[in-house]
């Protein structure tokens, strides 16, 4: 009888203890965005953050030359995706821009896409056209053509992937390379890479 009571007590203690140790975060709807997400063979939000943090840290540490106290101006160039996966390359560039702007290291030009007239650059040109040609804007306050600041640097990038696997697991390797090129001289003044390797079990 006493043994039965003790066994029951131990059983209850074990169940309560294990329940107390369960991680409640897994059950919440909103997961912290700085945490690793559901394992995916492609690039997920956490991978983007790892790339952005590495690149921004490297760029801040390197620093950028300025002319007589002027902050350098960077323009976001293309980041080419050479992988079979859909990677939001623009998001990487924009996140880097956000963090560099917060740091005060450089300014960014968004006037980069004159030919296509799309995106934020296209909207900027449309606004200039509206101010100068629509006749709706007070000429005294209209911003004139030809005053856009020329970028000192352009940020280019490439993303590659190599995938291997066996019957149990797929290994996805991604390599992100970003390069900052000085427009005036065409010289690359900064470059860095971030490797991401993910092992995804096959179902």
């Amino acid at each position, binding site marked *: 009888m006493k043994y039965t009571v003790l066994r029951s007590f131990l059983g209850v203690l074990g169940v309560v*203890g294990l329940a107390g140790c369960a991680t409640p975060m897994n059950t919440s709807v909103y997961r912290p965005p700085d945490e690793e997400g559901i394992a995916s063979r492609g690039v997920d939000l956490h991978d983007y953050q790892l790339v952005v943090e590495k690149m921004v840290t490297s760029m801040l*540490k390197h620093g950028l030359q300025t002319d007589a106290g002027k902050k350098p101006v960077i323009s976001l160039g293309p980041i080419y995706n050479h992988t079979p996966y859909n990677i939001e390359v623009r998001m990487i560039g924009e*996140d880097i821009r956000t963090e560099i702007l917060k740091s*005060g290291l450089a300014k960014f030009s968004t006037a980069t896409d004159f030919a296509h007239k799309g995106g934020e650059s296209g909207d900027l040109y449309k606004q200039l056209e509206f101010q100068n040609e629509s006749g709706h804007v007070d000429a005294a306050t209209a911003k004139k053509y030809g005053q856009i600041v020329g970028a000192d640097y352009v940020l280019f990038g490439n993303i590659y992937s190599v995938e291997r696997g066996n019957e149990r697991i797929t290994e996805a390797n991604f390599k992100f390379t970003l390069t900052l090129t000085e427009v005036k001289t065409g010289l690359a003044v900064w470059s860095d890479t971030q490797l991401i390797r993910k092992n995804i079990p096959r179902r």
Partner: protein
Amino acid sequence: MRIFGILGAVLAVGLMGGCLSSAPTTVEKQGSEYKVIANSFLLNNHIRVVERSTRLVNGLLEAQVRGQNIKGKDVQFEYRFVWLDKDGIRLNTEMTTWKPLALHAKEVAFMTAIAPTPEATDFLMAVRFAQQSSRW
């Protein structure tokens, strides 16, 4: 009869020890000194945070924390830095991602980061196990 009592005590202590392992080990300022706060008994038996250094690079605070895997086997950790301003208020930045850190047996790790803005004058650093199943 007595053996069940001992078993019960061992089980209770073991479970409590397990529950204590949910929190990361942090390096944080207490007064004018930096202290390593080992919130997890289990994690503290895997990684030892031993040294902290800072310097200014391009006007930004660069931080390095040295740690060592004190176990005789490979372990995967994650770490992150959280940046604070001069008043101790956390800065709003994306630069606080948990970063993977795989350490071989007895290997020494240098966890480094650079502050995202000149306003960052202080930091917190936290280490935890990489696998969620180890963080219970």
